């Protein structure tokens, strides 16, 4: 084949791929003029959805960091039988269809579920509440954080952790002064990934929490509802999520490029098992 033709084919394929990836986002911003976009966002439906989304995502993110960080540290630093199995359990929600995650939560926390009678006795009713939203997005988003955090902790030079111990620091001080700061870039990246996933969660949330305006209706659920009622408002919310996601992506790249040492290269790669 002619050289110029080969070049043209590669160039052409690249242009098509890039256009396809960018087109939906471009379409969102060209469909409605920016001035009207801002006006549409003052719609009470949008405001309610934004509040639900921010509240649930913030709580979910806090839970993920609080419980996921110790789990990731243990899985990264300890070698024991069944470790690979535990890592697989952590990764499972990642490959689970969201609808399955939703029905699973129902089977666990629903009125007739595994813990239904216990929760009932405590006077707790979880499905179709903000708690349900939090549980759904925590389940779906946490593997992204834990996996990245395991890789980040594994990348911390073991000699540095050992040095900290021989210098008189116990396990807790070693974690907070050495392991945690050195894994910082990777942890931030994992947190950003989980946040993005949580913010965009749809399937598990609608199954387990429904789409009640002002209670469980997050931005993606509101987009779905407005889609058939008021397309322009749906587009406006879409634009809002694009802006937030883009900001997250940029901060993620920033977090990954910040490496405190040459030994510690935080990466998004899967943990070794």
């Amino acid at each position, binding site marked *: 084949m002619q050289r110029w033709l080969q070049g043209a084919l590669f160039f052409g394929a690249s242009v098509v791929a890039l256009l396809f990836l960018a087109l939906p986002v471009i379409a969102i911003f060209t469909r409605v003029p920016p001035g009207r976009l801002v006006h549409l966002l003052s719609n009470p439906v949008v405001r309610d959805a934004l509040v639900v989304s921010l509240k649930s995502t913030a709580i979910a993110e806090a839970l993920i960091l609080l419980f996921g960080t110790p789990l990731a540290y243990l899985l990264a630093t300890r070698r024991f039988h069944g470790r690979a199995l535990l890592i697989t359990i952590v990764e499972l929600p990642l490959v689970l269809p969201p609808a399955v995650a939703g029905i699973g939560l129902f089977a666990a926390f629903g009125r007739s579920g595994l813990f239904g009678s216990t929760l009932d006795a405590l006077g707790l009713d979880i499905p179709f509440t903000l708690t349900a939203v939090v549980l759904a997005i925590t389940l779906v988003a946490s593997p992204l954080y834990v996996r990245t955090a395991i890789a980040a902790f594994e990348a911390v*030079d073991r*000699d*540095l952790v*050992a*040095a*900290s*111990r*021989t*210098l*008189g*620091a*116990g396990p807790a001080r070693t974690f907070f*002064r*050495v392991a945690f*700061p*050195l894994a910082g870039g990777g942890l931030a990246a994992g947190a950003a990934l989980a946040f993005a996933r949580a913010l965009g969660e749809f399937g598990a949330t609608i199954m387990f929490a429904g789409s009640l305006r002002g209670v469980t209706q997050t931005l993606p659920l509101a987009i779905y509802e407005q889609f058939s009622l008021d397309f322009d408002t749906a587009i406006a919310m879409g634009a809002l999520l694009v802006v937030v996601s883009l900001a997250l992506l940029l901060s993620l790249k920033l977090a990954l490029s910040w490496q*405190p*040492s*040459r*030994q*510690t290269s935080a990466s998004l790669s899967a943990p070794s098992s």
Partner: protein
Amino acid sequence: MAALSADFRLALRSFELSLALDVERVVALVGPSGAGKTSVLRVIAGLTRPQAGQVGLNGEPWVDVERGVFVPPDARSVGLVFQEYALFPHMSVRQNVAFGGKRRVDELLERFRIGKLAGARPRELSGGERQRVALARALARDPGVLLLDEPLSALDTHTKAAVRVELEELLDGLELPTLIVTHDYEDAAALAETVGVLVDGTVRQIGTPDELVARPADPFVASFTGANLMRGHAEPMENGLTIVWLEAGEVVYSTDEARGAVGVVVYPWDVAVGRLQITDGSALNLLAGQVSSVVPIGNRVRVRIGPLTAEVTAASAEKLELARGGTAYASFKATGTRLVPL
């Protein structure tokens, strides 16, 4: 009673590390890489648990496997300097030193001449500076024992000589029980009063550097201390000397007593080199050979003649016009010829 006593067994990947060692002043363990040297330090520091045995400092038990005693590393009074120094990259020099203990930071920064670098990050430092920070950090804890893992191997040849002298002076002044591991016999001999040769997890011989050179226990120790090693068959003679037929066919004599298969050990600095066959010298042993290499090392020249390495001064090498390919004679005295059983 020794300050630090270690007597333990630890299974490593392909062999078992088995060590019984008392450290009162500066002891060096020297051995090839993979001999288990770093594992010795890790067990003493508490980073690795041995399968059996005890480790203790001044009678205080740190490990006693049989009695179920294990003191975690942070509760042991050790100062461990890692091979690559393991300085915390996200902390300044001052913070690194203060991590070990805040009380003496200024004094230590001053003493190790790193006061001006207090605000610098480890990546901005040279190899020698990093080592000084690592030493200061280890000492900031006021340890009861100092452990050095290959203290000179991360340095380039140029810095190494100067740092070795510094380290020698430091260890002399510290009066701490110190255990050094290194793969370099010369470093071990320069830094320590007692040197043990560790091979495949066991100490083959332990003694002063002079003892190891004068009476190597086996061919490995001999070659590790830098000696020439030739194989041969020994027979005692009537005049009290021992005659050795070398595998290559030559004959050498030794004042050591031996019979049967032996290793003939000759140190390079005991070998004289000449262009002519010397017949009236006191050296009984004379080997002729081709000069295969002439390598200057500082003020000396290392000459390889046949199976032997000889060290002569640069001046005599010049006078003799030694060059590769030429023939030369190596002579050494029977009194400087050690025989070790093979």
